């Protein structure tokens, strides 16, 4: 995680995350993501190689169709950008949406 810019008008933070839960970013995880994103004032953009979408829109997030192992870039712009990035990274990489990773799934 790094701060790219820090001027008076705009705070921009960016991070890269990897989808770790086995089933990927299906409806429920997409919902969790936009729920977290909508708690913040800043604009949130999520991109994979091909597309950039609004991290607060469930339609756009779910259309990313990110499967397990997909790398996503999250960019936040606004006063609470840093908090937003922290919270989203935690949700995707550490909690992996409260869902099992492929190795955890095998153990079951």
């Amino acid at each position: 995680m790094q701060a790219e810019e820090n001027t008076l008008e705009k705070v921009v933070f960016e991070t890269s995350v990897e989808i770790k839960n086995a089933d990927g970013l299906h409806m429920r995880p997409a919902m969790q993501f936009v729920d977290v994103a909508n708690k913040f004032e800043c604009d949130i953009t999520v991109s994979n190689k091909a597309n950039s979408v609004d991290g607060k829109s469930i339609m756009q997030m779910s259309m990313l169709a990110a499967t397990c192992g997909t790398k996503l870039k999250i960019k936040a712009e606004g006063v609470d950008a840093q908090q937003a990035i922290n919270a989203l990274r935690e949700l995707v990489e550490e909690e992996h949406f409260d869902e099992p990773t492929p190795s955890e799934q095998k153990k079951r």
Partner: protein
Amino acid sequence: MEIKKGIAVSPGVAIAKSLIIDSEDYRIPQRSIKPSQRMTEIQRVRNAFKDATGELIQLEKEQGDIEQRKIKDIFAVHLRFLHDRRLRKRITDLVYSESVTAEYAVSTTMREIASHFTKVKDAYISERAADIYDIERRLLKQLLGSKREDIGHLTEEVTIVARELSPTQTAGFNKEFVKGLATDAGGRTSHTAIVARSLGIPAVVALEDLTESVRGGDTVIIDGNRGIVIVNPDSETIRQYEEYSHEFLELEHKLDAIKEKPAVTRDGVRITLLGNIEFPDEAELVLQKGGEGIGLYRTEFLYLNRESEPTEEDHYQAYAETISVFKHRPVTIRTVDLGADKYTQSKRFAPEPNPFLGLRSIRFCLQNLMMFKTQLHAILRASVLGEVKIMFPLVTNIQEMMQAKMILRDVMEDLDEESIAYNKNIQIGIMIETPSAALMASTLARDVDFFSIGTNDLIQYTLAVDRGNELVSTLYSSADPAVLRLIRTVIQDAHKAQIDLSVCGEMASEPVYIMLLIGMGVRTISLAPPMIPEIKQIVRSVTMEDCNNLVRKILGMNSERQISSFLRDATRKILPEAF
């Protein structure tokens, strides 16, 4: 422009705006609006989102404490979509930029999103499409709500696009405006196909995912000759099709020219061609096409297109209207064939697990005597108006036939007591459409005046194939040697007992089977009215020797494939235009 391939089930070409009917009968009305109406439509979109959200929250409350996480998640996901500003904006932007209705914009956008999901390889993700359709329905329900338009009240020509059409839905069609049918499911003998042929409009079925590619209001070409549906054709394609449609009509006119000529083979054997009808106003069509009477008058439609049960007078009026067209030519009225896929299932508290083997047709009538007697009363009363015959469907054993005849006698006594005139010598016949009836034909023949072979059910029950299930519908064939053996037995038994025999199933409307039927001894054929000229053309082109030789060869064949390709080749030589 998108081209879809399916199965052609009713000939002709239709070019018109599409009307989509889903299982809930929603239709998406006209798509274009004046630029000045755009703000109103955008407000309607916003309201629909708001109201759908309110309804969903209410629904969630009513569900109480939902234990299941999955159901909870579905509600939650739908709510997130309804709160999604990007989604709402995408829809309102479409209303603005294209000047279209709120319904059209919702439908278009949601279908775009759904088709995006269905293209994703990951099964878990592609299943999201179902959620999107659900949300589409929620929004459309708000938009169309109380003023949900009735398919019976069309004001312009349309092509109907649906997953599958039920008899109840097709019964409400206004024939003046419905120009063609196209469905995702179905086969050659599905209900959609039968209705289309009887209305004389083109139809293509088994298009699999057509409803995902079409939006209400899109221009659609239905080519019922080649089994093709073209969505949003370009102007060049439309021009070609208009020309082609014109040529097709010319062939029809050429065939119509023979309607005054008799249906006799080249060596002078007379074949009687009758029409199968469902509605009284089709009787005219039978006459126009050169039919000599009605071989099968299906009466269930009296029950399907109304809220309450028809009265005796309703029955009588419908029969009287039909009979008046034919005066002293035969009109064979089949008693109601309800049950299975028609009418009774939707009204039944506990649907049967296997309706086609359940309480349907004559079985249903024998357990609902009031209803049955009402119909018989009306048929008898109408019997003095012309040459009316009465026919019982789906008889499986001799008791059922005897019971039905006994009830008919009871009703005759009632009429005697009421001093109402009727034809005491009315001809009584049964349909042979189960393997058991076919095997027992020699016994059944002793107590009736005629047989009519109903090939659709006979094939379905003999081959154990659901004709509407596209996974197995290719197994369904009139050319199966087992089916042909049964049909031949019935024909021979009818001849031995010297009773009349006709064939009234779909098989009789298909050019390829005509020589075979004539060669096996059939002299009366009842078929879909639009097909009468073509079938007459075949009759007039063959000799008995041709037909007998063909039957001799076919009887030596053991596989359906061999028989059907032999029949196709033989027919192509007689009537090349039919292919």
